[in-house]
């Protein structure tokens, strides 16, 4: 039964101070972990890899610097400096060495790095040449796969260069029995192992590694207890002294033992959360259903008057701040794909119990409150919505949305639960789902979901149809025939499907190669101790120890593909407004759009480099020709006019996102070209592939590598994100966009779909504004949309919307007696709204 009290507790000064301290400086790369792990590996040459991993983790826990920041109530810092990051050379290192001089100045997520750190890392890196997961993965990939990656058909960069992460462990169990309890489980299992068993060698070694890792984590906590005691000795402020003594006490008790109160539970949770991110560099280590597993400790303390709701809120706020203290440095390209220093630690509130009753409790509301207090990107805060979700809970969530922080994301139980059951989960487990990273649902403590396996650009195979599989002189796709010869749309569409199927198989090849490389080079005993059934099976999660195993690569560009194919179908094959070869010509000339000299030089360099990389000589004359064709100077005025006319016709074709059933059901079918073939593939852990439809922020950088498309999109501009309509193409208001998006099949995309909407805060004004907003979400979810999130935009954005109205066609604003699309309003009205928001102090 749902039972809750809504308290709007004030934010304390401590939280403001902790946040100020956190963001004072640019984050810094620290060398300690890399140096320690390198030493540890040197000490264990030729030992079993799992033993080496446990030894390395132990050595890190024993030696990495421990730091308690001023005023903290929850301790455990991965780096000395706030928001710093450690380095994980076992996954990859070459990119960082190559970026030593630029990592502090790059556009996306810069990090300071000192000369001393560079020297230490360079020294450590000498050891790792040829030993990383990424190098082994490359060795496992087929040549065609490597070509496809090189030509940006897809990007498996995430796990190629980093740990996998993307998991939620069984936090509740650790709170209950502590690491001592887990150690006992492993010891009991070890006792059952007989030297004559077929799996004795692997299983017993693994279990010993689990025990060693858990003990190391306890040691790490003990070091914090000692540090806190030392700090307490010298502390003059008596309040702080008491706090430090409490912290010391907490760190002695947890995570070794089960938590005996809420503060200990918070501390125990935190050690698990940060140590998982010390063992591996995988991001999206998601706390999941924090409001559910923490609630018994909160309830007990409140009932026994051990804690006030205010202090419980402050502890939660402290955790929310700490989640932003962890950081990760990615390679430049990945940093653009995951822009914003994000670690995607998804924490979700609300939803239902495994038994199917509403699960909303005090902590669900306090989680929203904590997010309002910190207004920071972490945790990636989400809420679950189902038909029995209390209205007040959604209203509180909507209040958070109104702050403009872009949180929470809203998830629909009514879609996600059946979609997980369809993937083999029990109903109880499916009801207990949480979200990993961006939008990926799974059952905590039982799943290795490999949720963020690759970015697949659905538009690139379309380009391969036009080029008969070629890209810059190299065969990248499959030979589907010259496009001019397709005399029916079906033939064209079949060619697209053939290119898709071919590229998807290569994608699977890449992901499986990386998967195997992680199992062989970086199995994770600490993580595996907290995922069922690793201990029983005697296997790490990387080797298939989890109950559920999936691989979930995410496709994006659905809207572009749907609109492109629909335009080709109607204009080329039905109305015969122009031929497919005329379209091809217009596309390759980017619809006659002028290219600036600077752009042309850049593009020419890029093309020449690609050709040279394939060991083909490029003469000066050829370069000049490339430049000329890039510059479009080859196109006559007459041709340009022709291309522009084609462009105009393409733009006028009805688009996905406007509640036009014919176009939308076409989009549904196009999405199947990605989601259906993927289902058939298996991963090395014995699990199945499941598609996601979301882009993180990769639709922008990967769009920059994509030519003009038949939906009228110009070359190099962003591709549509997730399942959202193409930017500016949904001109019929928010309900129409929701209706269109809900016509896609969200059930089959069980690795998650992502729908972005943009609102002006004025549209959510007052209680009635929130009501309408909440009801819009309810209506979208009634129609079986899976996820939606909102940008509630700022004044700066409105200014930009005035300058570039084409990018903001669906921005909803509250006007006087009505709400309307911002760009459809007169200049004077736009000015008025901008001024009004300034008065509102926002």
């Amino acid at each position, binding site marked *: 039964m749902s039972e809750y009290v809504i308290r709007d507790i004030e934010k304390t000064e401590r939280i403001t101070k902790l946040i100020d301290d956190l963001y004072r400086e640019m984050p810094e790369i620290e060398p300690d972990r890399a140096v320690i792990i390198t030493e540890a590996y040197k000490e264990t040459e030729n030992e079993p890899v799992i033993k080496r991993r446990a030894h390395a983790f132990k050595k890190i826990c024993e030696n990495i610097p421990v730091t308690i920041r001023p005023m903290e109530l929850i301790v455990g810092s991965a780096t000395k400096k706030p928001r710093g990051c450690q380095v994980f050379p076992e996954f990859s290192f070459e990119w960082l060495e190559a970026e030593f001089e630029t990592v502090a100045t790059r556009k996306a997520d810069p990090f300071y790095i000192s000369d001393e750190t560079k020297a230490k890392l360079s020294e450590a890196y000498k050891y790792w040449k040829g030993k990383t997961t990424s190098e082994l993965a490359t060795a496992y990939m087929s040549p065609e796969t490597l070509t496809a990656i090189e030509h940006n058909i897809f990007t498996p960069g995430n796990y190629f260069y980093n740990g996998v992460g993307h998991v939620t462990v069984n936090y509740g169990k650790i709170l209950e029995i502590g690491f001592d309890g887990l150690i006992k489980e492993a010891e009991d299992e070890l006792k059952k192992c007989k030297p004559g068993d077929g799996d004795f060698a692997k299983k017993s070694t693994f279990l010993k590694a689990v025990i060693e890792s858990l003990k190391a984590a306890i040691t790490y906590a003990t070091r914090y207890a000692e540090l806190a005691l030392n700090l307490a000795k010298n502390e003059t402020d008596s309040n702080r002294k008491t706090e430090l003594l409490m912290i010391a006490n907490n760190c002695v008790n947890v995570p070794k033992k089960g938590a005996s109160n809420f503060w200990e539970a918070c501390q125990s949770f935190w050690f698990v959360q940060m140590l998982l991110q010390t063992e591996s560099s995988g991001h999206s280590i998601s706390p999941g259903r924090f409001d559910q597993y923490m609630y018994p400790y909160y309830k007990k303390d409140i009932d026994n008057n051990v804690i006030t709701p205010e202090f419980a809120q402050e502890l939660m706020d402290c955790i929310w701040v700490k989640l932003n203290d962890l950081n990760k440095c990615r390679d430049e390209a990945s940093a653009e794909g995951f822009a914003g220093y994000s670690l995607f630690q998804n924490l979700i509130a609300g939803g239902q119990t495994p038994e199917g009753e509403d699960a909303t409790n005090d902590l669900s509301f306090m989680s929203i409150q904590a997010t309002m207090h910190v207004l920071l990107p972490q945790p990636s805060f989400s809420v679950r919505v189902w038909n029995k979700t209390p209205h007040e809970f959604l209203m509180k969530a909507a209040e958070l949305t109104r702050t403009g922080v872009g949180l929470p994301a809203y998830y629909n139980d009514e879609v996600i639960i059946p979609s997980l059951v369809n993937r083999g989960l029990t109903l109880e487990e499916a009801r207990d789902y949480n979200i990993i990273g961006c939008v990926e649902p799974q059952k905590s403590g039982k799943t290795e979901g490999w949720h963020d396996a690759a970015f697949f650009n659905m538009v690139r195979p379309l380009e391969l149809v036009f080029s008969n599989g070629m890209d810059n002189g190299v065969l990248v796709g499959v030979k589907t025939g010259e496009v001019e010869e397709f005399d029916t749309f079906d033939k064209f569409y079949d060619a697209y499907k053939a290119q898709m199927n071919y590229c998807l198989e290569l994608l699977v090849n890449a992901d499986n190669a990386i998967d195997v490389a992680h199992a062989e080079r970086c199995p994770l005993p600490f993580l595996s101790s907290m995922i069922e059934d690793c201990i029983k099976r005697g296997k790490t999660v990387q080797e298939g120890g989890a109950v559920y195993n999936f691989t979930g690569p995410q496709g994006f560009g659905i809207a572009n593909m749907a609109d492109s194919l629909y335009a080709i179908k109607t204009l080329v094959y039905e109305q015969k407004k122009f031929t497919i070869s005329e379209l091809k010509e217009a596309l390759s000339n980017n619809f006659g759009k002028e290219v600036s000299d600077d752009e042309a030089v850049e593009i020419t360099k890029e093309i020449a480099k690609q050709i040279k990389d394939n060991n083909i000589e490029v003469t000066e004359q050829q370069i000049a020709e490339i430049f000329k064709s890039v510059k479009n100077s080859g196109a006559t005025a007459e041709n340009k006019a022709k291309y522009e006319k084609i462009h105009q016709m393409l733009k006028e074709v009805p688009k996905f996102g406007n*509640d036009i059933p014919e176009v939308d059901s076409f989009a549904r079918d196009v999405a199947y070209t990605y989601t259906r073939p993927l289902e058939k593939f298996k991963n090395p852990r014995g699990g199945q592939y499941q598609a996601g439809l979301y882009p993180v922020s990769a639709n922008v950088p990967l769009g920059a590598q994509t030519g003009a498309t038949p939906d009228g999109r110009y070359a190099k501009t962003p591709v549509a994100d997730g399942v959202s309509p193409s930017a500016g193409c949904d001109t*019929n*208001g*928010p*309900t*129409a966009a929701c*209706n269109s998006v809900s016509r896609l099949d969200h059930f089959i995309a069980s690795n998650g779909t992502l729908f972005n909407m943009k609102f002006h805060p004025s549209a959510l004004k007052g209680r*009635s*504004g929130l*009501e*309408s907003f909440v*009801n*819009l979400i*309810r*209506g979208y979810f*009634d*129609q079986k949309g899976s996820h939606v999130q909102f940008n509630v935009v700022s004044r700066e954005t409105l200014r930009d919307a005035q300058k570039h109205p084409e990018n903001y066609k669906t921005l*909803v604003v509250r*006007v*006087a*007696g*009505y*709400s*309307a699309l911002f760009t459809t*309003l*007169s*200049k*004077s*009205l736009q000015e*008025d709204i901008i001024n009004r928001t300034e008065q509102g102090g926002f």
Partner: protein
Amino acid sequence: MTDNIYNVKGRIFNIQKFSVHDGPGIRTTVFLKGCVLRCRWCCNPESQNYKKEIMITDGKETEVGYDVTVEEIISDVLRDRVYYRRSGTGGITLSGGECLCQPEFTYALLRAAKENGISTAIESTACANYEVIKTILPYLDYFLMDIKHTDGAKHKEFTGKSNELMLENAKKIAKEAKELIIRVPVIPTFNDTEEEIAKIAEFTSSLEGVKELHLLPYHRFGQDKYERLGREYLMKHIETPSDEKMQSLLKTVEKYGLKSQIGG
């Protein structure tokens, strides 16, 4: 009257989805073309003429007004049914222009909406023969009626017509409509005095069963449309009433025991 209400044709100039201030809940507002009044402050000047006309939009000449059947509108409106249902009382709102200027069409639209189980509202001046109004009332959930001024001469000066018919109609509508809500555009130099607002509130409170009066502050968002239609805007010098002013008028209204709010 046409036998099949779904075949009735009418002239509109816009359909606005996700309208959240034109009656309760999430609604779809259909803007009908043509009005009997010529209010100087009208923010939809393109609605006034029944005739289709040319307006400049993004530098291009575009035609305002198109003819549609009830069936076309209803099938479009029903696409958002789920949102009407979720917001409790959402549905269709007829605005304009003045929907009573196209009585057959309005009747058919409202009846068709009710046949499909969705809530109905109109935003109207009630400036029509009462017999016309009477025919639509069985199919109408919310009558959102404008009262602009209690003085006939002043009313005529600013809107082109005196107010007797409308005020008489208000009394009848109050008796027979499911729910009548009075809305007052607060226009400086016309009706923005405590005295006039009090008079309107007094009149409203005398209407049988009427409990709500909304104050809609003047805005000049329609100004550029006049220019785009090649017409002169007569209210250039008028400023939007201040928040303090609106709050004060709100209190005046509440003195008459009416539920009130600023904005729709």
